[in-house]
């Protein structure tokens, strides 16, 4: 109860929201659905068909209802009804059969459409990405085994399949403009496919509740032309001779992957994992790691934070657990798909946080 009464101050967004730079959905003529960037037209078709049927039925029902309420309202307290009819078999048969026929049309249309959406064509199978969902970010592996985080590039006019995998709890892969949604069940693979036909940047949401930062589990979907794809914009980790860019890149990655558990700015309030501040101290040109008690296989030992320890902690976090409470209670999930290059950028960022 106490935690409702005493509110920790809300986290300051600080202008680096995951959806920065993504335009709002363009809405179609009828004002209901985002303009589709894929080919599943039957979704929109059936949606508006059903919608129209619903409006027609709604108008009939409320029309008759409001008319009779007005026309047949009781004016004197002992007024008797105009009719005592108790049933009308032909009418009842009609209003049973007509809706039945209409809903069967909807069923057939919807099922045919869903078959289209679950049967992956060969072109899409040959263009398979893997999307890994974890609390609370997305990692994508491309057909050429390169990787990107929190954003994904797909080529326009080329059907694409995503194999979906979760490393912890249920998530759902939802791209509104493509009309695809699929829950991601840990312990097995799911798949979706779509055929992007319109270039642009679109949101990808997690649609299945997955815990604290469910609403921040967002990725950008870039639909780009073949030339841009060939340039692999997602794979551009700044070169080692550009330390400033590397730190900036590492900072961006850290906001996407690590900030939901680790404190890395004075204004952050998270205490799930150890703070990154004070991890290193700058002495001249070298960075000296802090001493730390860790539990390894149940044994407490003291180690010095260094690159090797951080890399190990990212790839296999449960091997050495920080002994200090509350961190010893929480376990970090593995980031073993992170490329070495990117880990190096993260470490560069971590070091840039050092005190002088």
């Amino acid at each position, binding site marked *: 109860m106490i935690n409702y009464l005493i509110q920790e101050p809300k986290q300051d967004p600080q202008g680096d929201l995951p959806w920065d730079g993504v335009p709002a959905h363009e809405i179609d003529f009828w004002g209901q659905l985002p303009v589709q960037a894929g080919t599943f037209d039957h979704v929109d078709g059936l949606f508006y068909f059903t919608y129209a049927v619903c409006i027609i039925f709604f108008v009939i029902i409320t029309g008759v209802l409001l008319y009779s309420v007005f026309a047949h309202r009781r004016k004197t307290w002992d007024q008797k009804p105009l009719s005592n009819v108790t049933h009308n078999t032909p009418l009842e048969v009609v209003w049973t059969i007509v809706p039945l026929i209409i809903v069967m049309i909807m069923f057939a249309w919807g099922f045919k459409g869903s078959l289209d959406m679950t049967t992956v064509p060969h072109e899409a199978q040959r263009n398979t990405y893997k999307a890994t969902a974890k609390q609370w970010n997305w990692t994508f592996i491309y057909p050429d085994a390169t990787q990107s985080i929190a954003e994904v590039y797909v080529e326009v006019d080329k059907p694409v399949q995503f194999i979906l995998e979760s490393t912890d709890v249920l998530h759902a892969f939802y791209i509104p403009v493509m009309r695809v949604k699929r829950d991601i069940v840990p312990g*097995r693979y799911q798949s979706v496919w779509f055929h992007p036909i319109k270039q642009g940047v679109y949101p990808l949401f997690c649609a299945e509740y997955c815990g604290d930062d469910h609403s921040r589990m967002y990725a950008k979907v870039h639909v780009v032309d073949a030339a841009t794809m060939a340039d692999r914009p997602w794979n551009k980790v700044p070169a080692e001779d550009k330390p400033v860019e590397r730190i900036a890149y590492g900072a961006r990655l850290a906001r996407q992957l690590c900030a939901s558990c680790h404190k890395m700015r004075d204004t952050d309030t998270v205490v799930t994992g150890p703070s990154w501040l004070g991890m290193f101290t700058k002495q001249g040109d070298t960075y000296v790691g802090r001493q730390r008690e860790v539990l390894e296989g149940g044994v407490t030992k003291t180690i010095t934070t260094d690159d090797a320890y951080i890399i190990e902690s990212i790839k296999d976090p449960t091997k050495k657990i920080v002994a200090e409470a509350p961190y010893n209670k929480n376990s970090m999930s593995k980031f073993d798909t992170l490329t070495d290059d990117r880990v190096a950028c993260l470490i560069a960022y971590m070091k840039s946080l050092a005190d002088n």
Partner: protein
Amino acid sequence: MSDHTSTGDGHAPGELDMGHHHVSSPAMFLSVLLALLFLTFITVVVAQFDFGSANMLIAMGIASIKASLVIAFFMHLKYDTAINKLVFMSSFLFLSLLFIFTLGDLFTRRLDHELHTTKSPVDLEWSHPSTLDGDH
């Protein structure tokens, strides 16, 4: 048998006294018991043989016969009112819905797997298409 006279009940005349005072004979109870023990023996015996996929069917078949004996005679349902029969039997009916749809989903997921839409839950090995042979 009845120690009291039924006063005008007027609820559902056909149901009166049915299931109220049916007293079964000890001989009948004894023979049901023997049948149950015998079927238990049969259960154990057939379990020693392998009938392949029919194993489950046979085991559940014998268990169902035993269950029916208990329900019909020990629980007197055979002599009970129609509504009580309906109530108890409908519990099995609705249970079968849970079984049919839940297990049906599991069984047909395998067919889906053949359509390459999903893989089975225990298959944790995933090879990226880039590592596969083919016209990729």
